[in-house]
């Protein structure tokens, strides 16, 4: 059985304008069905405004969909009893794009990573500290960073702290919502490597939401393409993305920059050698 199943989820947002409540609602997700198997990574591609993040929120249990179900290990995350929901919250973690706004600026790295442990595990102070240090080391930071505040870290380091927090409870699924998009290339590669390692070591599953085709390709096992709230393509193998004839996918493919000045796609910049 799949770890996570999304069944026919539809969702829309109501837009409220001042003194005008009855605006037509905006459909953001239409009849989405997908599944993620244990230990695999589903890459979810889409342009901005396609509904990627909304789907992420629905899966995390943060946005109750108007129609459809989200099943985690067979339990509907919105209707399960309190204890099951608590368990699901532990097994389902998230890392957002903006690492800085995902942490409390007045908390140290130690308390940021320790917070979920405090909520879920009954550890002594010394044990918790040791666990936090282990987690820090696991993501490539060190004991020295324990007492630092978020503003003392770079974006890449802070994203590592977010990842450490996400893995602290040994979850089963992590939703990575544009987690590497705001990092520079070197850090992006390093974080993607770290994520792949963690996936292998802990048997983690990921939902990797991104607009970056190259990043999605490098980490995912399966790929989905979201366009205007609809899951237009769902590939069991990521390579199918490159043979797809869907017009949206073709346009996405043709927008990938070649990465070499000789193969430019902007007409006016060509032949300038």
């Amino acid at each position: 059985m799949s770890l996570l199943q999304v069944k026919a989820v539809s969702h829309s947002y109501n837009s409220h304008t001042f003194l005008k409540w009855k605006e037509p609602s905006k459909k953001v997700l239409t009849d989405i069905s997908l599944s993620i198997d244990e230990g695999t990574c589903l890459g979810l591609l889409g342009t901005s405004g396609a509904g990627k993040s909304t789907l992420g929120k629905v899966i995390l249990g943060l946005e109750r969909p108007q129609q459809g179900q989200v099943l985690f290990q067979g339990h509907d995350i919105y209707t399960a009893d309190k204890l099951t929901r608590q368990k699901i919250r532990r097994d389902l973690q998230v890392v957002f794009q903006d690492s800085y706004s995902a942490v409390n600026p007045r908390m140290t790295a130690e308390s940021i990573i320790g917070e979920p442990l405090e909520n879920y595990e009954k550890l002594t102070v010394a044990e918790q500290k040791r666990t936090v240090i282990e987690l820090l080391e696991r993501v490539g930071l060190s004991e020295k960073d324990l007492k630092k505040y978020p503003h003392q870290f770079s974006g890449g380091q802070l994203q590592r702290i977010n990842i450490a927090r996400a893995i602290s409870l040994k979850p089963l699924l992590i939703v990575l919502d544009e987690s590497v998009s705001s990092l520079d290339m070197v850090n992006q590669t390093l974080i993607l490597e770290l994520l792949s390692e963690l996936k292998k070591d802990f048997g983690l599953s990921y939902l990797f939401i991104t607009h970056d085709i190259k990043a999605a390709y490098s980490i995912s096992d399966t790929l989905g393409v979201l366009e205007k709230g609809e899951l237009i393509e769902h590939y069991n193998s990521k390579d199918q993305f490159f043979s797809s004839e869907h017009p949206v996918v073709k346009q996405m493919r043709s927008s990938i920059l070649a990465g070499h000045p000789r193969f430019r796609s902007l007409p006016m910049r060509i032949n300038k050698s």
Partner: protein
Amino acid sequence: MRTERSNVLKVSDLHVQVQTKEGASTLVQDINFELEKGKVLGLVGESGSGKTVTSMSILQLLDRKTTTIEGSITLQGRELNGLDDKEIRGIRGKDIAFIMQNPMNSFTPVFTIGNQFVETIRSHTSLNKKQAKELAIEAMQNVNLPNPAKLLKSYPFQLSGGMLQRVMIAMAACLQPSVIIADEPTTALDVHNQLQVLRHLDKIRSEYGTSILLISHDLGVISEMADDVVVMQHGRIVETANVFELFDNPQHEYTKKLLNARLSIKHEEPITHML
């Protein structure tokens, strides 16, 4: 042929220090580059390498109480370093426009796009409100924004990131500045919008002869746009080269490392469609 006059922006021996509790700390040092008219200079390096500090010091946006900027920054022969607030304010937005990475944070959420657009235009020109609005609408049409009149009435949070970034480009372009500093202009955008934004930037460059200082960590963007590239590491320039030379024959170890860090796709599209 390079002549002295074709240099729109010239940065020489730039040295920026910040005062901390532990003493002075150097952010960037020995920065030298020239930006020619109608050319694109790429500035690459990983985060923390001093790219943004360099661009901020060109516009004198750093806090003068804590940072000291040494060296010379000349815009068409005029020294910018050390100008007082009033003088530099006349240059920001008019002669040197700035496009920031995060369009969501670059507008104030409490005023409409139109309000902020018109304010920028009116503070640099003698146009009245109506004329400024017309100019704004025209500039927005130039970057393919649909229904500009309606967009002017909306608030920044009602627009998507890609649209806001295009608004910012329209704002930067409407006063036809001689230099645009684009600090990671496409990092927050998806591939399709990224190409659109680059296309618009390039259009502005070819139409108005604007020089662009393109700051990015994305070598894809740099390879697409830049004529020359400056590579920065730890606050210093490690390599300056023509874009073709840099990609074909990188000299410095760090440049090689950056080039190797590029993510690649096994199934490269046949490149014929790009030629």
